[in-house]
């Protein structure tokens, strides 16, 4: 028997990473807020636990989501993750079943062939050996694809991949060496002993025919152990840390923990759960339309992980949410970026190697001090109203939308008050997007006061930006409705009589209304009621951003125009008569970017109103649309 000192690197690495993971998870848990701790504890003994196990199996091992998007990429991830998992599970069973004794240390399972060189020449053991070789071949096929992807990303349908740091590179090399060195180690040992199955046996006997297999074998066993050990040691400071952390993230998310508005253990976990896969770069319009390739979410997270000054990255984003929609790990990228926007100055320090192993980061949200106050705003005494209409600043820049909404509400006999007819106060969302929550809160309080005092039961707004903040950050009794929802309600309850327009139209989901607020069906129902709705190439949750987003704090007009032109081209590919949107900002942006007529959904509906609207509405009794909504 040869000396088996070679297991030391593996053992050290394994016990280091196990202890490190346990300690770090414990600290993360300890730093959770009280409610989040309770959520996690409750989740551990209930359905969330089972859901998490299922999700871990489907996503972390099988990589179902990536598979659906790109089968080759999915296979690559699956063969490495699931294959390695199988190798560990069946290797442990093999060592337990065929080994000298039960309950072996892990090294005995991992280096089974070294300890049992003559094993598996007949019977069940031979069959089992075949199975183990099959798993190894499965992993090696994935590894081959991974190498191809690294050198020729286009082959895997990926336009962009993220850049590696040097620790990532060493970790990657050690990861890549693990399985080929195992193959070579097992083959040489099998070759020397005449054992092994179709892969290790065949390769082994071939090698042994012209090489001194028994002498060479230990070299590869050392290499195998060293690459495993190196990989485990570098794991916490490399991108591959995402593998164990993602498991924790799945448990936390399924227990109901969300990002919130400041840094916490959960943002830490999300930061480390990012695999830098680059899917967020591929779908980013800033990347493929405007050629900006250094601000995407993968770089934001990487900057957070390494404690860099990422203010420029943070500010330069449309906040459209497409990356969050496709993130295979399910990181809440939008809220994470907003937290960073709230952050004041941060020094840009390059972490020393050892610092990157630190168990806790001193990252805290030092919120910017308010730069201005809205103390000059005077309190208003609004008139009582059943329905309150808030056009919003952006809608005031598209007066045709206001004119259309007035016509529609008059035609339906809605008794409404126009809250910001003479100019109102901003809803606060643009300030929140800029990370200025304290200032935004002043505006929110001002508007809330007016809305409460009006006694309105429904608050209708024409702007998805206002809509989102009304729903999420205001405490209101009134039901908040975007005008597309409100028009749909008016149609459903029969108070709006409309003709049919013989126009083919395409609908653009505004970011804040679709992905931001989940309103996809109502606008489509309204449009289909009055015109022929074509489907768009990218719609629903993958709808494009118009490029005019208030979410980006630094993007130039020129780049915005390029993004707008690209999005408009995609939307009008089937040459519709009209491009319909439900956001004044999208309307204004697209109007500069395409020859196709651009209208708001309210304008389309107003065009379908019967003529002589004014005289008709006077004859009709006023109606209260809220009655039909049930929850108004």
């Amino acid at each position, binding site marked *: 028997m040869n000396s088996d000192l070679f297991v030391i690197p593996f053992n050290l690495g394994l016990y280091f990473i196990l202890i490190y993971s346990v300690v770090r998870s414990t600290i993360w848990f300890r730093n959770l807020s009280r409610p989040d701790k309770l959520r996690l504890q409750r989740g551990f003994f209930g359905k969330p636990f089972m859901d998490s196990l299922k999700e871990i199996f489907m996503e972390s091992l099988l990589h179902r989501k990536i598979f659906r998007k790109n089968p080759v990429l999915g296979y690559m991830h699956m063969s490495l993750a699931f294959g390695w998992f199988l190798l560990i599970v069946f290797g442990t069973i093999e060592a337990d079943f065929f080994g000298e004794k039960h309950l072996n240390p892990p090294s005995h399972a991992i280096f089974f062939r070294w300890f049992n060189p003559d094993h598996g020449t007949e019977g069940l053991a031979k069959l089992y050996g075949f199975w183990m070789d099959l798993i190894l071949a499965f992993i090696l096929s994935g590894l081959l694809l991974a190498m191809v992807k690294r050198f020729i990303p286009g082959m895997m349908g990926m336009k962009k991949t993220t850049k590696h740091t040097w620790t990532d590179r060493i970790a990657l090399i050690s990861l890549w060496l693990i399985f080929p060195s195992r193959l070579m180690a097992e083959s040489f040992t099998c070759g020397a002993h005449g054992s092994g199955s179709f892969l290790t046996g065949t390769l082994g006997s071939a090698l042994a025919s012209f090489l001194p297999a028994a002498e060479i074998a230990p070299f590869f066993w050392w290499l195998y152990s060293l690459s495993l050990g190196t990989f485990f040691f570098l794991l916490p400071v490399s991108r591959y840390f995402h593998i164990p952390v993602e498991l924790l993230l799945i448990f936390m998310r399924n227990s109901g923990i969300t990002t919130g508005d400041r840094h916490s253990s959960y943002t830490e976990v999300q930061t480390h759960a990012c695999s830098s896969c680059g899917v967020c770069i591929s779908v980013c319009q800033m990347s493929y339309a405007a050629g900006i390739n250094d601000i995407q979410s993968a770089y934001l997270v990487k900057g957070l992980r390494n404690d860099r000054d990422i203010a420029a990255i943070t500010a330069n984003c449309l906040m459209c949410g497409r990356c969050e929609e496709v993130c295979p790990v399910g990181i809440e990228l939008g809220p994470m970026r907003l937290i960073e926007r709230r952050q004041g100055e941060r020094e840009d320090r390059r972490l020393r190697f050892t610092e990157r192993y630190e168990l806790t980061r001193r990252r805290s949200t030092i919120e910017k001090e308010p730069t201005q106050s809205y103390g000059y705003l005077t309190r208003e005494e609004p008139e009582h109203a059943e329905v309150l209409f808030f056009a919003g600043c952006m809608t005031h820049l598209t007066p045709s939308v206001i004119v259309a909404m007035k016509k529609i509400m008059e035609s339906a006999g809605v008794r409404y008050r126009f809250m910001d007819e003479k100019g109102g106060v901003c809803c606060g969302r643009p300030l929140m997007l800029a990370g200025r929550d304290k200032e935004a809160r002043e505006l929110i309080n001002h508007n809330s006061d007016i809305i409460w005092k009006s006694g309105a039961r429904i608050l209708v707004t024409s702007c998805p930006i206002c809509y989102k903040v009304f729903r999420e950050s205001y405490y209101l009794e009134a039901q908040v409705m975007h005008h597309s929802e409100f028009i749909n309600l008016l149609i459903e309850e029969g108070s709006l009589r409309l003709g049919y327009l013989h126009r083919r139209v395409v609908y653009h989901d505004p970011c804040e209304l679709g992905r931001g607020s989940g309103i996809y069906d109502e606008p489509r129902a309204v449009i289909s009621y009055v015109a022929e709705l074509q489907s768009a190439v990218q719609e629903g949750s993958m709808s494009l951003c118009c490029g005019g987003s208030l979410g980006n704090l630094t993007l130039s007009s020129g780049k915005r125009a390029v993004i707008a032109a690209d999005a408009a081209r995609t939307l009008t590919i089937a040459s519709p008569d009209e491009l319909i949107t439900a956001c004044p900002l999208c309307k*204004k942006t697209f109007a500069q970017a395409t020859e196709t007529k651009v209208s708001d959904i309210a304008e389309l509906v107003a065009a379908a109103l019967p003529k002589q609207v004014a005289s008709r509405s006077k004859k009709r009794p006023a109606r209260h649309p809220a009655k039909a909504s049930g929850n108004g």
Partner: protein
Amino acid sequence: MKGTPQHVIIAGGGVAGIEAAGTLADLGYRVTLVEKGDEPGGHILQWHALFPDRRPAGEVKSYLRKRIEHRNINIITRTTVEKIRHHGGGVAVNLSGGTEEKADAVIVATGFELFDARRKEEYGYGIYDNVITSAELEEMFNRNRIVKADGTVPSRIGLIHCVGSRDEKVNNNHCSKVCCVTAVKQAIEIRKMLPSCEVFCFYMDMRMYGPYYEELYREAQEFHNVNFIRGKVSEASVNINNRLVIKVEDTLAGRPLRMELDIMVLMVGMEMAGSGMKLAEASGMKRGINRFLETTDHHYGNNLSSIKGVFYAGTCTAPMNITDTISHARAAVAETVRYLNGK
């Protein structure tokens, strides 16, 4: 000149095209003037009076009319030049309608288009009745009647500068040069026609670059009580009395301002004409980021295209007033003649 006279085609019968045609004809060249409208003349045909001296536009119009009454000039109306290409030693052009014309050189004088004010939706053009453009105001001067859409006489009119000019949001970074002084001229005319009507000009800068422009600006303030407010109008709406309400920041006083107006006049800027863009596209003529035709040198090659035998005249290269357009057209003729003599 001996033998048959050389032939030059001029694309566009506005001020530049007419001046170039007349000058070439005087020099003995044969000219074909291609005009897309019913008659040559261009934008000036709609104009009532010209800055800086407010002389009647008719005086310049009759000068231009006489300029092309020449036996060497053949005028083709309701036609556009669609493509210019090389043919033998000269050039050939494709005309709308499918015909072809051969010549020794071409002068492109396709001119400008007024900015479509509907693209600045926040000003409500096409939505509110009493929002009009500077060109429509000029037509009111022609009819000698300034009234609101309902026929009543306005008591306050606002002129909004830089509509579609110096505005990144509509992809126009350029200054259209003539709108400031046009606004001053029109403000004075309103005040003279309706002495009881207040007039406000909302500007970013007053660009009084030409001779006697500054004097006109001073006159407007000293003798005609025109109010100038530095600030860009952000939005317009109508109130219950159907009066326009504008929001603007008075940047000199440093405070926001809301004002009611009876008529809002949008001083629309100049953009490269659509027909010129199509011609440039089809013929491989270069355009700058402001979409106007790009000449070979801003200083000493300002009539030259990168295509042999093709020359540029007038506002197809940049916004210009009438004075500069006429000079630019004569310069284009000089370049054309130099080229033809060298052939």
